[in-house]
């Protein structure tokens, strides 16, 4: 398979580009922020995503979805990133769907996701930095389990219908075995979700689980074998976050290159200065390399290739590095106006920072690659 979008994928990209640009441009995000919107995204827009079929991209045709892959999900995510559109698409239609796929939970949650009614959030992180370890306790209790502990950086966690929760049913935090993944309704007794506004104006919850009781059928997959669905979730989430970052970095770069052509100083466009040309050209190169890494990961994931995990870490790390450069160069080359709230480039910097951190930053994934390679 060649490493570029095929005709159908290109058509989907054009559709997604038109749709997101029309319905959720950066001004949409700005308006939600200015209104101190308590949801964090537009539910109407989520419905429209469903009407467009986007929420079913990764859901099989037998279950009413489109039965497409990570390349197609990524095409939509890149447009979300480029427009900084607040959306539960990544957590719900990508990461949660992949975790639930093929499990008994799929029938329960997929219809709502397909309809654009259900929102899912991912309760994975237990500290400020994403780690592979899972320490939160889930103890057997009656017919089910009792969850006790805390999670953080749970995007949409305060409004989600469904929380995907990683907890430990056996062993110690760093063990692979003994992790169980749960599908927990947000209205479960003992669950408190406290939304925190992040730097990019998105809302992520700190969630306290105070002896939350769930039935045995809340288990996603098998008890103690939650690494399987969790790995599916993380592979999809990381690849998706990388695709969204490509949009953020690419959007920042395009805006900046446009500014270099328009802005005049000393009587000429500042883009005629070699000092800026070389920085822009270097940035372009980094973004191209990141784009290839993302497409490679998506294709390997879709092919079920055993090298997919490595490619996913490369994609997440590389887009983190390239996008972090893109947004910094963006603000710097815009000069003073780049520091103003009125101008959009600053939003790209904030969003890029949040996505770089999500599901493990470049250092986390470089470390993972090194461990896998035996050093």
């Amino acid at each position, binding site marked *: 398979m*060649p*490493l*570029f979008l095929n005709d159908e994928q290109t058509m989907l990209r054009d559709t997604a580009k038109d749709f997101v640009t029309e319905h959720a441009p950066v001004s949409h995000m700005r308006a939600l922020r200015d209104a101190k919107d308590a949801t964090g995204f537009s539910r109407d827009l989520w419905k429209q995503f469903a009407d467009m079929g986007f929420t079913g991209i990764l859901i099989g045709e037998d279950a009413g979805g489109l039965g497409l892959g990570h390349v197609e999900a990524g095409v939509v995510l890149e447009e979300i990133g480029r427009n900084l559109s607040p959306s539960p698409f990544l957590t719900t239609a990508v990461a949660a769907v992949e975790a639930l796929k093929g499990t008994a939970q799929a029938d329960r949650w997929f219809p709502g996701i397909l309809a654009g009614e259900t929102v899912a959030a991912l309760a994975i992180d237990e500290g400020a930095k994403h780690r592979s370890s899972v320490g939160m306790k889930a103890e057997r209790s009656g017919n089910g389990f009792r969850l006790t502990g805390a999670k953080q950086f749970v995007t949409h966690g305060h409004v989600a219908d469904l929380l995907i929760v990683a907890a430990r049913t056996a062993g110690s935090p760093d063990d692979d075995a003994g992790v169980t993944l749960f599908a927990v309704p947000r209205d479960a007794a003992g669950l408190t979700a406290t939304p925190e506004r992040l730097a990019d104006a998105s809302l992520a919850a700190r969630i306290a689980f105070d002896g939350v009781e769930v039935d045995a059928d809340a288990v996603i997959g098998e008890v103690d074998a939650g690494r399987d669905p969790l790995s599916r979730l993380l592979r999809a989430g990381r690849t998706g976050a990388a695709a969204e970052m490509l949009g953020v970095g690419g959007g920042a770069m395009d805006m900046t*290159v446009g500014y*270099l*052509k328009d802005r005049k100083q000393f009587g*000429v*466009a500042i*883009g*005629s200065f*070699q000092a*800026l*040309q*070389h920085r*822009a*050209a*270097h940035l*372009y*190169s980094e973004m*191209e*390399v*990141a*784009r*290839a*890494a993302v*497409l*490679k990961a998506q294709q390997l994931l879709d092919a079920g290739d055993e090298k997919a995990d*490595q*490619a996913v*870490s*490369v*994609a997440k*790390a*590389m887009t983190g*590095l390239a996008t972090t450069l893109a947004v910094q160069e963006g603000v710097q080359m815009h000069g003073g106006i780049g520091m103003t709230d009125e101008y959009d480039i600053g939003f790209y910097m904030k969003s890029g920072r949040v996505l770089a951190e999500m599901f493990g930053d*470049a*250092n986390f*994934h*470089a*470390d993972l*690659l*090194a*461990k896998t*390679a*035996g*050093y």
Partner: protein
Amino acid sequence: MTTDLDTFRADTRAWLDANCPPEMREPVRSEKDAVWGGRDQSALTPAQKQWMDAMGQRGWTVPDWPTEYGGGGLSAAETKVLREEMARIRARNPLNSFGISMLGPALLKYGTEEQKKRFLPEIARGEIRWCQGYSEPNAGSDLASLATSAEDKGDHFLVNGQKVWTSYADKADWIFCLVRTDRTNKHNGISFVLFDMASEGVSTKPILLISGYSPFCETFFDNVKVPKENLVGELNKGWDVAKYLLGHEREMISGMGLGGTGAKNPLVEVAKRSVGTGDDGQLADPLLRAQLALFDVRAKAFAAQSERFIDELKAGRAHPAQPSMMKYYGTELNKTRYELLMSAGGSDELEWESEASDGGREARAWLRTKANSIEGGTSEVQLNIIAKRILELPS
């Protein structure tokens, strides 16, 4: 369901298994291991010769060239399968050649039918080794200011002047050369000619480099007669051919960024030897480990970009200036790789002549990489091209 491509893959795998000698599945360790072909093949080992000839006769040294010019006539998809199957058994490149990577594509586009029939098959079979006469003492980054002249003498040109940084000119059989045919017009006064390095009036002088090697030469032309039929493209339109060829040269050089992404990472092996590992198997120097790991991210991402670039190129979808980006990134990456290698190896890798260091192999290779971002257009020239042609920034 078995597709044609599956069948091709199975056949290719069987043929490679039968025809690639075991020695040609070992990693390339030094310059000596690289096969360049040419009239003088006395330095080749029997395995090198067998592998080059087997691939050359099948046209697989140039798998996607047309069969009538000595190529394999393979489609883009088949070529990719061949490369994958060669990588699977770690088969060495059977033939390194400026004829394949630079002149061939230019002749396919600009050459006459006679030129293609005459020159391409012997390039494919590794019978003639080519060198490139581009840079001059006063024409480096500003290549179009070149002054080597070709005077029209009726049935031939009379070439006079000097080239510099001519890679392997002292070992090459023929040269593709940029010459000035009109002094009044800078870019539109350059022509692209081919001639035999054994011609009367051609002399070469190797230049000793910081690596202690002399891969580059000064090349002198003193009344060299070049037959008119050896002009490629139109008279005074050689700059178009030169630029097209430079794109291919940049692609080739960008491939240097690909080292070290195989199963065994030589950087890591060197680091393990010199700093050791802890109980957890991790390198005992955490800062070096972090540098290697972050480098690995870029190296693997660039490998994906190289694959994407080739796929786009074969499908005619690549931006014409994209080779500049590939060249820039690949060469900077390769320089970083060797800086890390020297840092990982410590004083072991500083030895210049010892047997243990194989005569300073890595130290010399480290210094050699410094030319990567100079030859074929400096990194700064590539950034200029990206800025102007891809980003369309104003001049």
